[in-house]
């Protein structure tokens, strides 16, 4: 099955995901959605790592390990981010990023 799929497909998918993530992060107004965009970026990275490892460097496992660490660390990042967002929500009753403007230039 996988023999029919070249690495190009994986790379196109991951690049698309990466830029969709960056676009979503910049455009979305909801803090949780922005966090989801970051997850898209991190998962694009994971696809990259695993695809490179599988196709180009099957003799070592560095890419697989890296992907596992990225997953674990992304989880911790989200845990802290959600905690902070909840503590913000308790005060201003919204998670719209336009309302988070106490400090400005």
């Amino acid at each position, binding site marked *: 099955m996988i023999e029919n799929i070249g690495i190009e497909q994986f790379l196109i998918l991951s690049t698309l995901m990466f830029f969709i993530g960056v676009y979503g992060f910049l455009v979305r107004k909801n803090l949780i959605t922005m966090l989801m965009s970051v997850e898209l970026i991190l998962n694009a990275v994971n696809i990259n790592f695993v695809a490179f490892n599988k196709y180009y460097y099957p003799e070592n496992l*560095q890419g697989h390990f890296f992907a596992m660490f990225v997953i674990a660390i992304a989880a911790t990042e989200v845990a802290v981010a959600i905690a902070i967002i909840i*503590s913000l929500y308790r005060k201003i009753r919204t998670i719209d990023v336009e309302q988070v403007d106490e400090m400005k230039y």
Partner: protein
Amino acid sequence: MTTDQFFLMRHEILLVAVGVIVLVMDLMTTPATKHRIIPVAIVLFLINTIIGFLPIETGKIFGGMYRTDDITILMKNALNIGVFIIFLQSAEWLKNHEEKFNSYGAYFFIVIASLVGMDYLISSGDFLMFFIGTELATIPIAALVAIEKAKIKSSEAGVKLILSAALSSGITLFGISLIYGTTGSIYFAEVSKVFDGNSLQILAFIFIFAGVAFKISIVPFHLWTADVYEGAPINITSYLSVISKASAFFILIILLYKVFYVIPEIRNNILYATSILTMTIGNLFAIRQQNLKRFLAFSSIAQAGFVLLGIIGGTQIGFASVVYFLLIYVFSNLGAFGVVAAISNATGKENIDDYNGLYRTNPKLSLVMMLSLFSLAGIPPVAGFFGKFFLFMSAAKQGYFILVLIAVVNVTISLYYYLLVVKAMFINEQENPIERIDSDMYTKIGLAICAAGILAIGFFGTIFDFINSKAFGSM
């Protein structure tokens, strides 16, 4: 791996031990006795700092993932001293905000956890350790920035920090994945062997540079800085602007010298452009700030621009001058933040106008502030001058005269706004200046260490020679 090799990580092991001891002792306190953890934590950290100076073997473990050399250890000791001063300065803030903390142990533990991350970051020998170190350094800090639950600003700063940190680490990771794809390794040593500078690798370099530049708040990536610095509790602000920045600079040098030395033109062009942008924009924004925390935030952005000057040629003396500058920067910036923290804790005032006539009521605080600002501005007798001098010299040696000229113009501009604060303290008058502040013993010791450091480092030329003998140039 034998025990001997394991103890190459002595700095990190000690820090973890201190953190765990503080956490366990914290469990034994009751609400009535919880303040006792503060001196315990400070003394334990002092012991850790002193042990850090004992001689230690160097080498690498985990197949090269972790490596130490003399200059790494020097940097770790500098970070230890910085965090020790921050702990001294935060004692009063912790006592003032007693109702917000069920216990103080968490505060110390989170700062130490983040410091462990930075130690691993500057010791990293491959991209996996680099990534884990950055995240371990950043995530706890975001929690600390948002620790003041009653203030909207604090949570807002926390959200801004964690979201932009997440984006930046995502971008760095994408760069690392491209490096892995094109070279087949994540170890610095192996990557640099097969790195040939094709366009995909240059893209990867730019992504990685962007991620690290975010941590240092170099100009196109600086937008989070002022807001986070203003909203965070002031001791955390000083942690972010000094410790976090210094360690990120160190790893940037390691990356540029050990991995990306194959593409010197691109590296130098990027550093050239960002250096000019960072100095100029940091200065121009610093002029119009009234809040001292924001003021110091932008001034620290401008300082980052000067540091880039030293890295640009990839020389050994550049490396040494950056480490020397960072050492001075730790003392001078912590001195300035210490005074702002002492005054903010006592009166809640943080604006430059509030400092009018400060010298009449608080001569000692004003003097320390003046010393720190002179050192940041680079006025000759104090250490900051020598730091800047070596940075400019190393850039001039490479023939970047126009860049040095721009930097000197920027130093002059920065002198203007640093002196505005000094003028407010010493010359301006107001009807009811800030009353006489009686800081506690911790703050006094902290400020005394800063003042001594600022004065001493400038006068002992051997320090620079020592750093220079440990530094290395681009491969």
